[in-house]
């Protein structure tokens, strides 16, 4: 009985527990909101709404940014103040000694003598309505900048603490960290803090989309020729006008101005996503453009004055210092937009274009007008003789300098001679536009089809100059911009309003966690691929949806190569791996080629092999990491040396070369087998630890551009072949191997023609210019101690096995390899020579 009782009581006891009895309750430990960075309201604010995180990285940290902005403000004040001072407070008669100052003690004129007294000065300013107008305008402008500055500082302060607390990077190490590292850390902290609440993990593409949301739209619009920037003018012919002012206005209209198409930084307004009332929306947009155009027109004098002042103060000093700089060229704003990949950050674009700068300016210098040359030579002669006499006289007796205008005429003559000299071609220059254009293409990655094979024509040069313009022209366009911009807005852009509305409706996709982005920037081959750019059969895009110039495909490759950690969607992965594998195969296939035709031909191959084969060095990164860096450097220098030797056919003996190439062939073989065995290890190790990822990304990111160059060249080459005829197109893109028996005769008929036509010519070209280019190459090597040339040689070889995708590629396409190698046997030569010439030209 007692037993029964106790049991009953225990049951009761457990019920009586329900009012909180401290000891038995489940205890929780709060995780706490350890950092303020989890769940950030406006991720775009963090990711470059106005560049923020990226910008702070690009501006090398908070202090640099702050100083830069402060100086900018001061500079503004200075420009305005100094101009007003010069115009109103200086007695020029005193300076020019037209009027004498009556000093008692000495006859020397001092600078303060030339200044007008303060009261006279202020009276002059007060009486001049125009000066007051300018002052008020610039005052307003300055205040605006000041407020913006304060706002920016607040934002950047926030970002700074984001860097320090969340990303664990101090401001002092920021300038030395690559963007890839910063990005990797952001991806890392998303896992920890979940700054974006929609997904568990952020991908690189998400980050890029956030940063480049509007830029991608602009690139796409330029790509689809939607923006009115190309004009057919009566005298100048076809020309491009795209200035900063115009760009600013476009962005104002589309993205952020009052009443723009975008509701906020991340989403398009709902009504623009529906097709129903597109006509009405187009009308509204047109009237908005009209109003903004009119506002531009009204503000035109102000902006014009500002532009002139700004140009004067920023460029006069430069021109005085080196007058040749006006004859120098720069990539035009349009060029930057045309050449930009989707999802390419500013610094990536700039480094790419800067690499192409040298070749591009060399190319443009090939086209000096012979007429101008004759004139320039003679003008230079006469001016030179006058100058010589004047200088000789001055040396004899320096009193000559005191004669009025002698000093100024000496200066003028000097400038004149410098200008003339820029029109006289370099005596030692060799005309090889086709090769140069190829080198340029390796860096800029885009060019119209009709340039190929027409590099020597003036039309090509003119079109290229639209991308690569004179600095002087650039400044002139900027000066003209305030006048031209309203005209373009009112008369050209307004007419396109319906197309613009359609564009935004059709090409905007909503990505979870990112917001509305340009669908082109998704780089989806299926939606936007162009059948002529290797995506035939994969693309379902109508002509309207296809990106021009293979932009989707090239952008995709570029993005995949610069962000090796990125996991693309499945079909996309397939495309990338297929392409990479092709390039890889054609490169590594070279040394194992069974019939070397002659020594001179095996030589380029050995070079290519040298350039592209051998993930052995890469394997070393993975297998013995500790000594890898040292090894790398050593290997690189060795390779560079051997490449150099094999590159100088005139001086080095034939048998040496033969043995070298044989050695390379062996090396190629072994490295290939190593690649085969190494893939597993690599795919496993690639994701193993963040530390390793960082190390390899550091090493590899520098080589990515070279790999991209090779891919770009390859894709252009393939595109050229493809557009040459339906036959070859057919064979190039056939996927089903069971058709191969039918189409082999086709290949045999069609392929040797381009091969035989093309190959000897380019090899001839190659041989005829090799001496010059070789010198060039050497000079590059010696110019910078780090050896761009050496880097190139090394860099090209590393990526082949370096990426996880690549490893997968090798695995996945192991079987079809032998079958496909049959049909691709011919074209590789062409490609190889091209790739080679790129290396050589470099």
């Amino acid at each position, binding site marked *: 009985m007692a037993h029964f009782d106790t049991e009953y009581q225990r049951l009761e006891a457990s019920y009586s527990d329900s009012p*909180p009895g401290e000891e038995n309750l489940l205890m929780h430990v709060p995780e706490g909101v350890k950092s*303020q960075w989890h769940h950030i309201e406006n991720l775009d604010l963090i990711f470059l709404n106005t560049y923020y995180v990226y910008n702070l990285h690009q501006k090398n940290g908070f202090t640099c940014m702050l100083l830069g902005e402060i100086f900018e403000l001061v500079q503004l004040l200075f420009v305005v103040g100094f101009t007003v001072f010069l115009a109103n407070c200086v007695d020029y008669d005193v300076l020019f000694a037209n009027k004498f100052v009556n000093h008692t003690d000495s006859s020397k004129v001092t600078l303060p003598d030339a200044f007008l007294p303060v009261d006279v000065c202020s009276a002059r300013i007060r009486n001049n309505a125009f000066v007051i107008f300018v002052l008020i305008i610039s005052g307003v402008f300055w205040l605006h900048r000041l407020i913006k500055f304060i706002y920016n500082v607040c934002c950047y302060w926030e970002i700074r603490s984001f860097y320090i607390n969340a990303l664990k990077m101090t401001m002092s190490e920021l300038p030395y960290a690559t963007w890839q590292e910063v990005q990797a850390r952001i991806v890392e902290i998303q896992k920890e803090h979940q700054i974006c609440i929609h997904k568990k993990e952020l991908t690189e593409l998400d980050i890029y989309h956030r940063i480049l949301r509007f830029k991608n739209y602009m690139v796409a619009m330029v790509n689809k020729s939607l923006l009115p920037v190309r004009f057919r003018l009566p005298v100048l012919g076809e020309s491009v006008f795209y200035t900063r002012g115009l760009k600013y206005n476009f962005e104002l209209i589309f993205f952020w101005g009052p009443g723009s198409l975008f509701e906020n930084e991340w989403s398009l307004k709902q009504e623009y996503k529906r097709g129903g009332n597109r006509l009405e929306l187009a009308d509204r947009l047109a009237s908005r453009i009209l109003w903004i155009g009119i506002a531009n027109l009204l503000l035109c004098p102000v902006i014009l004055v500002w532009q002139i002042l700004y140009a004067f103060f920023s460029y006069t000093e430069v021109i005085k210092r080196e007058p040749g700089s006006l004859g120098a060229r720069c990539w035009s704003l349009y060029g930057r937009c045309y050449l930009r990949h989707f999802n390419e950050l500013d610094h990536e674009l700039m480094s790419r274009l800067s690499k192409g700068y040298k070749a591009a300016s060399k190319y443009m210098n090939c086209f000096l007008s012979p007429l101008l040359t004759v004139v320039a030579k003679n003008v230079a002669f006469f001016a030179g003789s006058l100058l010589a006499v004047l200088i000789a006289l001055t040396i004899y007796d320096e009193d000559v300098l005191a004669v009025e205008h002698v000093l100024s005429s000496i200066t003028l003559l000097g400038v004149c001679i410098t200008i003339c000299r820029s029109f006289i071609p370099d005596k030692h220059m060799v005309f090889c536009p086709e090769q140069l254009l190829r080198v340029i293409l390796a860096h800029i990655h885009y060019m119209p089809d009709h340039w190929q094979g027409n590099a020597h024509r003036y039309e090509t040069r003119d079109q290229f100059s639209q991308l690569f313009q004179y600095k002087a022209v650039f400044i002139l366009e900027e000066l003209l911009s305030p006048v031209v911009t309203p005209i373009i807005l009112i008369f050209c852009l307004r007419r396109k309003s319906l197309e613009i509305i359609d564009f935004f409706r059709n090409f905007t996709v909503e990505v979870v966690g990112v917001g509305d982005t340009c669908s082109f920037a998704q780089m989806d081959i299926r939606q936007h691929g162009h059948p002529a750019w290797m995506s035939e059969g994969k693309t379902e895009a109508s002509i309207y949806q296809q990106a021009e110039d293979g932009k989707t495909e090239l952008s995709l490759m570029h993005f995949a190569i610069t962000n090796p950690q990125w996991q693309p969607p499945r079909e996309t992965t397939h495309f990338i791996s297929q392409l990479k594998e092709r390039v890889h195969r054609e490169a590594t296939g070279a040394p194992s080629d069974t019939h070397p035709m002659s020594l001179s031909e095996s030589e380029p191959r050995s070079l290519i092999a040298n350039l592209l084969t051998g993930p052995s060095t890469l394997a070393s990164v993975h297998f013995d990491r500790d000594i890898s860096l040292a090894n790398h450097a050593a290997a690189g220098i060795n390779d560079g040396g051997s490449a150099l030797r094999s590159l100088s056919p005139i001086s080095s003996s034939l048998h040496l070369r033969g043995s070298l190439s044989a050695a390379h062939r062996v090396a190629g073989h072994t490295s290939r087998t190593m690649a085969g065995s190494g893939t597993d290890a690599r795919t496993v190790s690639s994701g193993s630890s963040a530390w390793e990822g960082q190390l390899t990304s550091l090493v590899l990111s520098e080589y990515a551009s070279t790999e991209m160059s090779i891919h770009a060249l390859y894709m252009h080459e393939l595109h050229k072949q493809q557009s040459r005829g339906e036959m070859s197109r057919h064979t190039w893109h056939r996927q089903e191997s069971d058709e191969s028996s039918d189409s082999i005769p086709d290949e045999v008929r069609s392929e040797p023609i381009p091969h035989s036509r093309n190959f000897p010519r380019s090899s001839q070209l190659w041989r005829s210019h090799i001496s010059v280019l070789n010198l060039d190459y050497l000079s590059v090597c010696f110019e910078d101690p780090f050896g761009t040339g050496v880097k190139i040689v090394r860099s090209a070889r590393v990526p082949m096995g370096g990426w996880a995708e690549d490893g997968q590629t090798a695995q996945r396409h192991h079987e079809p390899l032998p079958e496909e190698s049959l049909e691709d046997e011919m074209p590789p030569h062409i490609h190889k020579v091209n790739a080679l010439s790129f290396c050589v030209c470099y």
Partner: protein
Amino acid sequence: MNCRSEVLEVTVEARQVEEAMLALLHTILLHRSTGKFHYKKEGTYSIGTVGTQDIDCDFIDFTFVRVSSEELDRMIRKAVSEFKDALSNSGSDGMGQISLEFYQKKKSRWPFSDECIPWEVWSIKVNVVNLANEQERQICREKVGEKLGEKVINVVEVINRHEYLPKMPTQSEVDNVFDTTLKDVQPYLYKITYQITDSLGTSVSTTMRRLIKDTLAL
């Protein structure tokens, strides 16, 4: 933008508005409330209990579960009746939207007020219909009941997903995540706003704020 948003749409008769809204809002809040936290000194806490209560609707064939907290109920009833009045006074075609927004507070430095950062927004769009006779009303009564049942399942599905929730706060930060003013229950910080007519355009103040921000961000 960095917040989830869920949209529910219901079509009801004028007299059903209040109950339908209450049903949905309470359902959501039921899943977004916890018991009161009792913090211990070692940085741990225990969670109090939450009672639930079945509520039968008068004008709809529907029963829903809500947190049995009179205070919470009063607050929601107040918001809903305001919404109902506004809807009936608007004289428009009877469209409205009530939204329940869960947010976190973020302390700011002195000159700025605290930031409210939403992490989940539920918008309930209401479409009011007028019915001619009693028979239709009867049908409507049943149909709305079924619809609401579907919506409740919908809500539960969404809430069951493993998605972002604010992390459990420490004692000092509990006010930033939870509404601790109620005596018997502790929901996540929420606010209820409503909008009449379908013009879902942003209000004047937000437009102005955006304008200024945009100009600054040039």
